[in-house]
Each structure stands twice: as C-alpha cells, then as structure tokens.
C-alpha cells in the first residue's frame, strides 16, 4: 500500500475591474480598439507624467473586500514593483505590497463533506500591463498599451483548498460575488478573471506544507482542474522517486495537458518594492466604508433564500436562476412586470435553458428584454394564445427579442374560440372521416382524440383546445 497524499492549494486571482476609465488616468478601459488608441502620457509611462488614482477602483475593491468578510486597511498605500519588461512602460508596476486595501477575509463554499470556509489573505489594487505582439514574420515585437493601466484587484487566498473541486467552488463563489457587485464580468476566457494556482503535496496527516509551485496560464475552469490533477501527480511522482519538488513558476499548456518550468525561485527577481512617492496614501473613513456597505446589492446567498421564500420556487430552480447575475436580473425584472414568478421561472428554466444549450451559450448571453417575456406570460394568462403557440413565440423572443403582442398579431397566432368557425371545421372533418364517427359510436374514445388533433392541425395550433374538445364531443354525440 503506497503513501497517501494530500494536495494543498492556494489561489491568486486577478480580476479586471469594470471601471470606465483606467486606474491612474482618464483613458478608456474598453476592450479592443486599434493598438495604442486608448493611451495617454500616463499609461505609456512618458517622462514627467504622474498617476492620479481613480476613486471607483477603491470603491470596487472595498465592495469586494466587504462581501468577502475582509478587514480594511483604512490607511492604505500604493507601492512600486520594479522589473524591466516592455509591456510595462515605466518598468515598474504600481501595486500594493505593504498595506493592501483588504486583508483577512473568507468565503464559504459547499463541498462533498459540507460547508467550508476558504480564507482570503489579502486583496490589493494594481494596474494591468500592456500586451506584447510577437511578429514572427517581421521578426520583431510590438507593444499595445491599450490594456496598460486597466485596474485589477488581486485576491490572494490562504492555502485552504484540498482538491480541484474546492478550487472550482471557490472560484465560482468569487465570480458570483464579484458579478453581483457589478465590479467585473469575470470572464476567464477573455482574461477579465485570471487565476494562478499555488500547489504543494504532503503526506496525509503531515503538519508541514510541502514545497509549492505556482501554475500560470489557466484560462478555463476545465484547464484549472486538469492542471491541478497534472501538477499533483507530477509532484507525487517526484517524491515517490525520492526527488524534491523545486519552488518554481510553471506554465500550463492546456493543449499538451502538461506544464513546463518558467523560472525557479533562485532566479526570482528582487522587485525592490517601495511606496510610490507620486501617490498619496488612501485614507478610508468609517463613513466611506458604511456607505459602500449600505450600497452593497443583495448577493447570491441571500437571493437564493429569498427566491424560495418570497417566490415559493424549488431550491433547484432558485439555484439555477441565481447562478448567473444576469439571469437573476431578467427573472426579477420580468416578475416585477407580470407578477407571475412560477410562470417566469418555468419559461427560463425549461425553454430558456434548452435554447441556451442548443446554441452553446451561457446565461450571460441572453439578450431579450424582460418586458417581452412579461408580455408573453400575459398573453398566455389572458388566453390570447395557447401554450403550443406560446413556445414558438418564446423562441422568437429569445432569438430576436420580438414584441410578443405584435408578433402574435402579425403572424395571426391568436387563439380561435369562435364556436361557429370551429363547428364548421369539425363538421367538415367528421364528414371526411366517417370511420372515426363510427369508431366513436362503437365506444372507441380514441376517435375523439383523432378528431381534436385534426381540428388543431387544421387551425394551425391556434384553436382553443378546451373549446375544440367540447365541440368535438357534442358533434360526435349528435352524429
């Protein structure tokens, strides 16, 4: 029987904040744009330029810190991290080392063994770097400073996670908190949320931590899970072979499903951190904290509970709906308009989820207006259209955000419950199908279903099924 190993994982999560302008200048943070068009002397590090802190960055960082139970350094400072690289125009990054804005917090995650708290060591504010573009054809490197100075927060966890599942649960938790706060869209693929994994292994029961490595370049939850598995196995193999784990930074290649060393601790740079003399300390008053606290929106956990009590939704539905801030927003706005929570939930949970899956989309991609879903619910409630028609209308709402009333009008989808018109249609069907009449008379109830079906078909689904049923029965009896 081989030794049992425990994996110890801590995370450094970078989140791009959703401010309109950069952290130290007025340039736009918008993604895209021709290279170096969202730049100025400050974010390109021109001589003589000076940084001025964007207040919104502090407010977002505070909001995230408060939502993750952190303590706040009410006197916090920015420090310079010095290193030479062309994506960093000043050759130092303005970050926080000595007095980060938030520290000593936690979030709770669900695990197979129940609830678990994951500690947050600190949250600090910093600026993003530009982007290097290596042109193999011209054999040169170009740099785009549009991203330079985009605000980031870095959330550093304690080494409290023990499996990939816990890591994913922690990341999901952070993502939902931050999305709910509106502080970031947290898209891993687009890089607005990036996670570096610090991992070590130790024999189960051991008290000391093993030597850790840091894994970079993880662009999806799946890549993170695979990288954790791969690194755990690599480290155990080394130990089993009697070799040592080297403290180093490794780069994960998700295509090869393996990692390679980038740099070891020995050649780690000395960043010569010191307080940035161009910026003044940020003083965060009790009033400021209280104001941010008061402005905090309802977060996921509270919303989940409220959906079950206030709207009487099953837990499963509430979890799905609140699993995306965007989806929850659509749900609530629709309910506010039509006051039919169960109906709205049903539309989103069944047809909504089905369509997302068919299109390979995420809840964030839903683009229809809540008013249109509310109108659809009302059309069904008022019996203007029947359920079958309603599903096709929902598809049109989902795909093109159509106005259901106008759509139903234009396509002539209204329910027909004009008994005279329906009577004529049924009579014609009975004439054409004497066998069905005979079957009915012989006591075969199924024949009635056939007649109703034929009628609905002739009416292209728009007939009111209750009226058709009633008329069909009456006419068959009277034949």
């Amino acid at each position: 029987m081989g030794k049992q190993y425990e994996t110890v994982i801590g995370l450094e999560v970078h989140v791009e904040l959703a401010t309109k302008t950069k952290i130290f200048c007025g340039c736009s943070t918008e993604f895209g744009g021709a290279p170096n068009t969202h730049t100025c002397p400050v974010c390109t590090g021109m001589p003589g330029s000076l940084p001025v802190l964007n207040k919104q960055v502090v407010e977002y960082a505070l909001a995230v810190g408060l939502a993750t139970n952190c303590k706040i350094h009410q006197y916090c400072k920015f420090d310079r991290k010095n290193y030479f690289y062309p994506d960093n125009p000043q050759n130092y990054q303005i970050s926080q080392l000595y007095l980060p804005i938030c520290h000593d917090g936690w979030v709770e995650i669900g695990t197979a063994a129940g609830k678990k708290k994951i500690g947050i060591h600190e949250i600090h504010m910093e600026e993003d770097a530009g982007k290097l573009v290596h042109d193999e054809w011209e054999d040169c490197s170009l740099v785009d400073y549009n991203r330079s100075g985009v605000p980031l927060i870095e959330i550093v966890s304690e080494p409290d996670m023990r499996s990939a599942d816990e890591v994913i649960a922690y990341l999901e938790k952070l993502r939902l908190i931050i999305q709910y706060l509106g502080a970031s869209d947290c898209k891993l693929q687009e890089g607005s949320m990036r996670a570096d994994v610090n991992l070590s292994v130790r024999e189960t029961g051991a008290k000391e931590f093993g030597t850790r490595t840091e894994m970079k370049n993880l662009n999806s939850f799946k890549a993170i899970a695979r990288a954790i598995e791969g690194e755990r196995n690599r480290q155990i193999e080394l130990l089993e072979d009697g070799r040592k784990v080297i403290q180093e930074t490794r780069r994960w290649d998700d295509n090869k499903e393996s990692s390679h060393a980038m740099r070891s601790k020995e050649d780690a740079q000395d960043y010569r951190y010191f307080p940035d003399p161009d910026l003044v300390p940020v003083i965060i008053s009790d009033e400021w904290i209280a104001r941010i606290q008061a402005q905090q929106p309802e977060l996921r956990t509270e919303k989940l509970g409220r959906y079950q009590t206030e709207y009487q939704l099953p837990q499963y539905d509430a979890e799905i709906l609140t699993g995306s801030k965007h989806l929850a927003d659509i749900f609530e706005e629709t309910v506010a308009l039509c006051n039919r929570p169960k109906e709205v939930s049903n539309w989103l949970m069944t047809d909504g989820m089905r369509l997302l899956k068919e299109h390979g989309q995420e809840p964030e991609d839903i683009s229809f207006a809540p008013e249109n879903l509310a109108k659809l619910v009302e059309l069904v409630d008022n019996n203007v259209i029947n359920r079958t028609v309603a599903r096709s209308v929902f598809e049109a709402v989902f795909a093109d955000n159509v106005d259901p009333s106008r759509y139903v009008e234009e396509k002539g989808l209204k329910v027909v419950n004009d008994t005279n018109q329906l009577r004529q249609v049924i009579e014609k069907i009975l004439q054409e199908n004497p066998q069905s009449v005979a079957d009915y008379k012989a006591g075969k109830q199924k024949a009635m279903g056939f007649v109703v079906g034929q009628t609905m078909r002739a009416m292209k689904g728009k007939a009111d099924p209750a009226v058709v049923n009633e008329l069909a029965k009456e006419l068959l009896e009277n034949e």
Partner: protein
Amino acid sequence: MDILDLTAVELGRKIKAGEIGVAEAAEASLAQIRELEPELNCYVTVDEENVRKQAARVQKEIDDGVLCGPLAGVPMAVKDNMCLAGLPTTCSSKILENFVPAYTAEAVERLIKEGAVVLGKTNMDEFAMGSTTETSAFGETKNPWNPAHVPGGSSGGSCAAVAAGECFYALGSDTGGSIRQPSSFCGVTGIKPTYGTVSRYGLIAYGSSLDQIGPIARSVPDCAAILETIAFQDKKDSTSILREDCDFTSALVDDVSGMRIGIPTDYLGEGLDDEVRAAVLAAAKTLEEKGAVVEEFDLSLAEYAIPAYYVIASAEASSNLSRFDGVKYGYRTKEYEGLHNMYKKSRSEGFGEEVKRRIMLGSFVLSSGYYDAYYLKALRTKALIKQAFDRAFARYDVILGPTAPSTAPRLGESLGDPLKMYLGDIYTIAVNLAGLPGMSVPCGCDSRGLPIGLQLIGDCFKEKNLIRAGYAYECTRSYEMPKMARQKAEKEAEQEVQ
C-alpha cells in the same frame, strides 16, 4: 537705459505701458544669448524662430487686452527637465537627446498662459544629479562671474542665464538645493517652495518626494510674482495641495520689525568658508538693525540629512529612471542581441557616471534584505528632521544661514570627489527632506569676486515670511550684475559715443 538692466517685473510694466515691445525685449535676450553662449553654455536648446513667433502672438494679446499679468511679454528660460511640447527635453542626458514631448509641464503652461516668451531650455546636471552642471551630456555651463568656475547645480544653466542677462527669469527645480545653491553661486535669487505648491506634472522626476519647481530671478519681487503665477493645485499631480495663501507679492513689505530669526549654530560650524560666514552674519546684522530679533540656536540632526537624502533620492531615482530603456523613445544602442542586452547597452551608454552611481546606490538600498536597514531608516530620519524643524519654527519665523559652505568652486574640482560634492549640499538638503520652503538671496561677494548666497528657510506654507525678510534685506542693497553681462551693453555705449 538698457533693457537688460531691468528686472522681470520692471520689464513687464514697461511692456504693458507700451514703452518696450515684446519683440524688442526678446531680441535683446537673443542678442545676449548669441554674445555669451559660446563662452557660458547656459542653454541646451534655443529656438529663435519660435521665440519671434511667441513674441508676436504675446504682443497682440497684450494689445488686445487679453494678457495683463505682470509677466506678460517677459522672455524667460526653462530648465531642461520640464517638458515643453514640440521642443527637445533632454534632462541634459544622452539617453533623452532625441526626446520631444507632446505635452507641456503644468508650471510652464501657467507661465505661457500669462504671456511668458520661452527663449529655450537651460542646461543642468544630468537628470538634476549634481551640484555643478558639469555632469551634463552637452558640456558644462560656466559661471558668468568667472568662467573658470562652475555655476553650481543642478539648475546651473537657469541661474547662469539669469545672471548673464540671457533671460529675465527662469524656472529651476530643487531636489536637494538645485535652485538655491546655483542661485547662490551666480548671485541671483531663487525660491524652492513648500513641497506640493507647484505641480510636478511634466517635470521629469529625479526624487519625486523631494522635487519642487521654483523661480529664479534677479530680485525678490520677481520671484514672488513668478511663484504667484505657478502655484496652484493641479488635479494631475496627486501630491499638489490646495493653498489659499498664494498671493506672495502681498508679502513684499520692507518691514521685519519683530520678526524672529534663528541661525542654527550647526550651520556656522566646521566646513564653512570664513568669507561666507562673515557675509551671512553681516546680512543677519542688517536684518537685526531693521528690527528683527536674531539669535543662534541648535537645530541638530543636520549631519544626518545628507545620508538620508542620498538614500531616499537615489532610491526614488533608481525607479523613476527605469523607464529610460531604449524601448519607446530616447537613445537606443546600435548593436545588441536580445531584449536584455538592448536594455543593458542602451542604459550603460545613455546614462552618465553620476546618474549610474545613483541608480546603483538606489537599487542597492531598496534590495531585499537592505530595505529596512537603509530605506526605512532614512524615512525615519526624514521624519526626525521634520520634527527638529517643527521645534525650531515654534520659536522662529525664519531660519537664516548660508546657502552653501563656499562660493563656486573651479571647474573640474568637484567631480573627482563625489563625497565632497555631496557634502556641499549640507545646508540645503534638510529643507527638501522636511518639505519646507527655502530661498537664496545674494549677500555680497568673496575676495575673488564670486557671489555669496544667504539662505532663508520658512515653515511649511510660510513663503511669505521668506519673501518679506528677503525683500527687506534686498532693499538695503543694489543688484550686481557680473561684468561679463555688461560687456555688450558697454560695447554698444562705446559705439554710440564714437
């Protein structure tokens, strides 16, 4: 009467009155520049064509009544570490020899808005590191009082240009004495304002927590008027402060009765030249005779100012100067292999010896393992020095002493012994560490005919005390111009006689 005999404010008045045209004033400065630059080398860049364009525009705006400030139309110069859109801004360094900014430093912008005619950019010690203007990559500036001597530094070009009549006033920057010390050596007046009074936006940083821009001119009223124009809270500089007491010219009152003046005994001790001591004490006596209460006191801690300064300023400089890497602008080495070799060669070739010495010193004191022992300790020393000044200003309105231990040394005398050169900053440096305002006013010449400077130091935001004391003292004397600056005027006078 020659135009060059006028102070900036006097010239401004005559321009406003229509007695002198802006172009006429500018041409007088340009003529003096042409005459003396071959010998003095005060400027890195003079753009004559642009000067004439500015003069024409400013004249029109004065005529139209748009410009009516005291400095409208007065030709001036800017130290070459302040950005001026469209003109090379080099910091007197090879690494920035081809750098032309697209923006203008806020302090310069304020003056331009008030009708300043910018003659050009003045020479300095490379990146303001030095006390002699000999570390410039574009040759040393010489002292107009005696071209065998240095003008001081780092704002040596600005001070020499003012003394030589190559401009009517200039902007300098002061990190450890770089306005006051060359003002002293060149016999002109210069003010280093309270930290945060003048925006640093567009000033190429040396030691960000110590750098301040300030005026250099022939008289205290000139300096007061210039400072009044450039002092304001700039939203682009987080360290700039809101002040509501920037009416500095209101302090131009010839009255020091009851003013309490302290002379630190430490500032009169070992290392101070006897002639300088005598001149400074004579100036103190003059103020006392005008009604000030003068006494000596122990400031203490002065000896710790120099090491603390060189740790803090070098640490900040090592980081501030890392952006000069040959990637985006400035000098790039001709041949290199790969990124790091390019960095290394560009910076090794682009920076001069003194700059490299301070980058290395600064990198060292910030290194892991040394940060606490050097950088943090220096910051604590800085706080103690501030406290020592606080105690002094509880008793005195103004601290008086020499600006520098000696008059201007001969060219080539200082660079061989950097430690000795650093010690030359002993009276000026503590003022920057404490963020205080300081001023140098001429107080005579030594037996070799080299000017001596009187330093006045005030508490934070108390520039007005310095201006009042400086003005009262200045009223007892007449402005002395170096002979060299007179040569041209005299030549012309001779021609007229003939």
